[in-house]
């Protein structure tokens, strides 16, 4: 089948115009962290939820807030605490004495962008309630089912160092996040700029510059981005290498991997690579896109063995090794 790359490139050129505006507006508030903002956009465009992990103070929450403020969308921030209940999240039935009837009180989950701050501070039942709505994109209160608005994106944060009093997300639930971002410290120059910007009189604010309609249109174009069978095979090779490393010349990883990535990883890797190509204004996916996003899609999907833990080898190390071993098409 002949593919009209010119047409898709033109569409991308048109529909990705907002990206520059968005990045510029976010850049007014967030210094550096281009990697994080780009990944948040990929999550938004590819309909995938994002889990951000990093020590406190790295502007995780601020980045999400800023992103929501530049898009004219409904934004809700939910601070996860140990006493949070599922009803606090999805809503509940309220008795109205005036009418003598129960009415639905929708919870904060009914928004376009949800910031689930410190998701691992709440017990499993609350996490499950959120993760279920993430997957089904609908919520059932009493006997009524409500569809969640579109775009619907959950951006969750968690702190990797304070583990006391937390409820770590089970693997099955972590798997529902398309991307898991590991946020690092800013560079020296960035830190200087952050310090100057945040200690001045006028703390910058981001203005809405993108409409949800633009996002929706862009999402449609992302689905049209061409992905060649060679790239599809490359993705499947990467995912299979996490399951059967010995078949790809990675015998040393065999005893380090307890469980490899699921088929959901292949789906998300393909979608995220498309979104990455869109952000690069390309109408087709290259191995570059797969490799760029591969670590973020796979790092939370590879479960390491006790042996790997004893040797202080992380899932990230394993994924890096896989990406560096599989030959690009």
């Amino acid at each position: 089948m002949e593919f009209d790359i010119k047409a898709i490139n033109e569409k991308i050129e048109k529909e990705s115009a907002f990206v520059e505006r968005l990045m510029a507006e976010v850049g007014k508030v967030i210094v550096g962290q281009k990697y994080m903002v780009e990944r948040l956009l990929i999550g938004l465009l590819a309909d995938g939820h994002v889990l951000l992990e990093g020590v406190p103070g790295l502007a995780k929450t601020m980045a999400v807030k800023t992103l929501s403020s530049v898009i004219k969308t409904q934004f809700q921030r939910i601070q996860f605490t140990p006493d949070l209940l599922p009803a606090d999240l999805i809503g509940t039935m309220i008795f109205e004495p005036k009418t003598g009837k129960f009415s639905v009180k929708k919870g904060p989950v009914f928004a376009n962008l949800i910031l689930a701050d410190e998701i691992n501070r709440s017990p499993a039942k609350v996490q499950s309630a959120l993760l279920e709505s993430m997957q089904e994109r609908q919520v059932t209160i009493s006997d009524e089912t409500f569809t969640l608005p579109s775009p619907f994106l959950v951006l969750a944060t968690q702190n990797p160092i304070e583990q006391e009093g937390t409820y770590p997300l089970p693997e099955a639930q972590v798997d529902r996040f398309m991307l898991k971002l590991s946020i690092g410290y800013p560079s020296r120059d960035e830190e200087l700029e952050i310090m100057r910007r945040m200690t001045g009189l006028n703390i910058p604010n981001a203005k809405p510059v993108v409409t949800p309609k633009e996002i929706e249109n862009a999402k449609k174009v992302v689905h049209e981005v061409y992905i060649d069978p060679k790239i599809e095979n490359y993705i499947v090779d990467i995912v299979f290498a996490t399951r059967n490393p010995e078949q790809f010349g990675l015998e040393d990883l065999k005893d380090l991997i307890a469980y490899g990535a699921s088929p959901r990883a292949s789906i998300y890797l393909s979608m995220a690579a498309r979104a990455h190509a869109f952000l690069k204004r390309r109408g087709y996916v290259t191995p570059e896109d797969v490799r760029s996003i591969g670590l973020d899609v796979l790092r939370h999907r590879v479960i390491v063995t006790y042996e790997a833990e004893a040797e202080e080898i992380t899932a990230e190390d394993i994924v890096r090794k896989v990406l560096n071993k599989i030959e690009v098409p």
Partner: protein
Amino acid sequence: MDYYCKRCFYSLVVLFIFFTSVFSQNSNQTDSSVINKTVSESGISLSAQVNTKQVPFNRTLELLIQLKWYGNLDRYQVHQFDNPILNNLEIIANSSANKVSNENGGNIALQEYSFTLQPKSLGMSYIEGVIIRYTDLDTDTEYSLTTNRIEVKVIDSLPEPGDKSWMLWLLLFVVLAGACIVVFRRLQQRKEEQIRRAREEAEKAIPLEEKYLIELKERVDLQDPNLDIGVSFSTLSRFLRHFLQEKFNVPAEVNTTEDVVSELTKQQIEDRFIDEIKDILTTSDIIKFSGSHAEKTELVRIYGLIESNLHKSLRGEVVIKNNEQNDSKNID
């Protein structure tokens, strides 16, 4: 492998023959005996004999001295005689016996003196002649008889029953056989290594670029009317990545175009070469991954670019900036 097996087989045969000869020597015990006989005019005879010409060092030798005559048994009186004079032998036991028998109706008298002799050391040993004096009582005349000297060879000891020394020999055999195998294996490996090195040297003699230029012509034939242009772009991209990996030691086969360019930039290779490599890889990527139709003119252009860059590299025109700077410093 056949050669190696044959060599091992021959070595084992040689070792087997050697050890067989050693064992056979040890067990060689002759049955032949030596008899010295002297007969007097009066019909009395004296003989001295040993039971073997060769005696193992840890065995004994039997010397038998025999006086024999026909007729009246009391005719002769044999005088007391001394023990035989021995060289490299010693007497460990002796005995004597008188016998009478009947032969063809007449009497035969027989006096026997036997000595058990023990060798003292390896080599030759001798039993000097034995002199026996006797008196013929009929004539009352005294006579004497003498035997000749007897020589006996003392050889290596035989293994004693229950002796485990054969195990030592067997062990020695096994060790020597093992050593032979190891030596031949080493020789074989050395020979193979020499052949491999010679082959590598021969390959090194051809410049890498020249090798790739030959391969380029084999991989993509632009004159082929059935040439698949899309596949050719993939072939050229992979070919170039392989060359870059071998030439500049960058992981080009597993890296993306962007990473390859970044790696080459780190190596401070001249910009023009990097730009052209980027052009080739990016163009190939577009054709390979965008699903768009590829033009033959574009393939010819890319082919030409690869060829020209290989030629440039062969002529040493692709220089590393650091080297250039170092060279200029050296000139200064």
